[in-house]
């Protein structure tokens, strides 16, 4: 992999890397690699969602710099990168969750099925029903399991009768792989479940409104490896019906579940490529540094 080093612009030569500078400085210099646009294949044919020249600001501070990326239909795209690189911020622009932060400003073009989701006539409520979200920390409502799953359908009037609602709840719990564990306890509080079960409950809650896209923001970072494996299997099954964008800190997870991987660095999108390519032959020096564990 070191053979890639001298070809990168602005990077110290091989000799400089091994000279007497302390390890911290070495990491910093690798960190300072200039990012000139995105390498790889950020665009696909007929994308489900797409972002063009996306810039996000928190007050004066810019968090996302000119990111352009497509999310293909029925694929899982993983977004990786060091902490504070803007991957979560970018994810949250895709269902306008950033709207809830008063100082946040979003520029650029963001489309769902070719429609601009930031257009003045676009309703964020409808958008969030079409683009669901699963959060880092399992956050079931302090209500019963049934009411947790039924909340979205009730909110949007998706069920006309109690029987229809029951069916939606059961179907969602089955799809989230939780039904067999909780079918006798539907009226017990959702907060009484284990962490992994809670996260699957949140996934069931998100898919109960039958979204087209599910955004997952580090869905397994609060879970143990067994619960993580269950969620990952679940994501793989969900892919046939939904488009999934997942932010993760675990490169193994990205490698296991995703078809494409996008690497973010300091608010910029560095590289997007098929997952196996990213983890075997990364195109960009920064990607390589990250996945080989030199920083992150």
């Amino acid at each position: 992999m070191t053979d890639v080093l001298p070809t990168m612009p602005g990077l110290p030569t091989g000799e400089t890397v091994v000279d007497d500078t302390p390890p911290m400085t070495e990491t910093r210099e690798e960190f300072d690699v200039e990012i000139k646009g995105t390498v790889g294949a950020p665009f696909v044919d007929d994308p489900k969602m797409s972002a063009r020249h996306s810039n996000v600001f928190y007050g004066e501070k810019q968090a996302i710099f000119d990111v352009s990326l497509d999310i293909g239909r029925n694929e899982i795209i993983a977004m990786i990168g060091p902490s504070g690189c803007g991957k979560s911020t970018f994810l949250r622009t895709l269902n306008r969750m950033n709207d809830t932060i008063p100082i946040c400003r979003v520029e650029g073009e963001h489309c769902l099925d070719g429609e601009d989701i930031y257009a003045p006539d676009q309703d964020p409520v409808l958008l969030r029903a079409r683009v669901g979200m699963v959060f880092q920390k399992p956050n079931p409502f302090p209500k019963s399991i049934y009411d947790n799953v039924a909340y979205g359908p009730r909110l949007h009037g998706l069920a006309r009768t109690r029987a229809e609602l029951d069916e939606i709840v059961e179907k969602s719990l089955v799809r989230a792989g939780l039904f067999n564990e909780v079918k006798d306890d539907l009226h017990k509080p959702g907060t009484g479940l284990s962490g992994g079960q809670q996260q699957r409950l949140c996934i069931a809650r998100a898919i109960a409104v039958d979204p087209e896209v599910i955004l997952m923001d580090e869905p397994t970072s609060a879970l143990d490896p067994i619960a993580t494996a269950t969620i990952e299997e679940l994501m793989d099954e969900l892919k046939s019906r939904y488009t999934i964008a997942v932010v993760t800190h675990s490169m193994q997870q990205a490698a296991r579940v995703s078809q494409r991987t996008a690497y973010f660095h300091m608010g910029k999108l560095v590289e997007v490529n098929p997952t196996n390519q990213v983890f075997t032959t990364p195109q960009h020096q920064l990607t390589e540094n990250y996945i080989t564990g030199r920083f992150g």
Partner: protein
Amino acid sequence: MTATRDRIEATLRKRYRRERLFRFFGLVSLGISFLFLLILLFTIFRTGLPAFQQTWIKIDVDLDPAVLGVDRHASQDELFGANYAKAIKVSLRKIFPDAKGRKKKRGLKNLVSNSAPWQLRDAVMKHPDLIGTTHAFWFLAKDEVDVFMKGRIDRNLPESDRRLKDFQLAWIDKLLAEGRLEKRFNTTLFTAGDSREPEQAGVAGAIMGSFFTMLVTLLLSFPIGVAAAAYLEEFAPQNNRWVDFIEVNINNLAAVPSIIFGLLGLAVFINFFGVPRSTPLVGGLVLTLMTLPTIIIASRAAIKSVPPSIKQAAIGLGASPVQTLFHHTLPLAMPGILTGTIIGMAQALGETAPLLMIGMVAFVVDIPHGILDPATVMPVQVYLWSDSPERAFVERTSAAIIILLGFLVVMNSAAILLRRRFERKW
């Protein structure tokens, strides 16, 4: 290594001593406050409990048509105007034939409450057939007799220092011997309005006044306070100069002397808007102003403590900000909001100063039946009675305090029960 250990060991003893001292002080302060609470309750109950009993006098009233001036066939109007006071006077003289002379005659009349003729009138108007017969009636005893019966007048005092003279004491002894004096549970205290005569005075007017005033206060301050808190916390633009200005003012309002709110109420509600004075409506409006800052501050703290993850989950599912507020934020904040409301309402219940300005510190005999009737409130009643010269009002003052405390306990229990229903585990 050992040097560090030695040094730590040297400080340890000091640290533990400080800790023990701190705990000791905590216990002492707790003990002192508990002691004072006990003393307070003990004095109030010792003084106030006798007021829950009242002495009654049995008199065989000769309902002579000649004395009354009407016969049993008279109309209700004529019965209403009959001379019942004379009938009682005549009957009393029959029991005590020795009552001769003006002084003794007046002394005789003062054994019975001056409500006795009305009591007799009501009985006769209900059963006109009683006219012409002699019938035993129980009348309220005059407050001095009542106080004496409760052992609060020392018969060994010189006669000139006593409200009851020697001949009256002799009569009371005779009445006692004949079984004509009896202490009963004092229902008047709970059913009557205020009165200049202690034996006829009750807190019903003040209780109803407090109830209506609290109702107005609650119905106004709770929704307004919660709405203001929710807006400031969830919707108001942040770092906006106006919002900061409002926040500072709300916090300061909580510390404004309550009489100022009374002045404001007088100027704005009564003089400008023409709300009738002395009514629970204007009282409730003024107390709302006083309670609002408390409720707003407590509600904001409660709303702020709702985990953002819950709000995010709701928004992520497509709930609008208002739906998120009503489905999740407010229910989860409700225990804290209710705590603030309890504190605010308890403050308002005990408040007299702001009511001074809007005419609610007044002698109101009639029991209010709505928010537009002239009324007074419990703490004002306590104040008025404590200011009255009659001996019998001393125990009634304490009794009113006991009833006020009871009112508070009932109000707070209701709020705590309500709060329990909202409390959920995370």
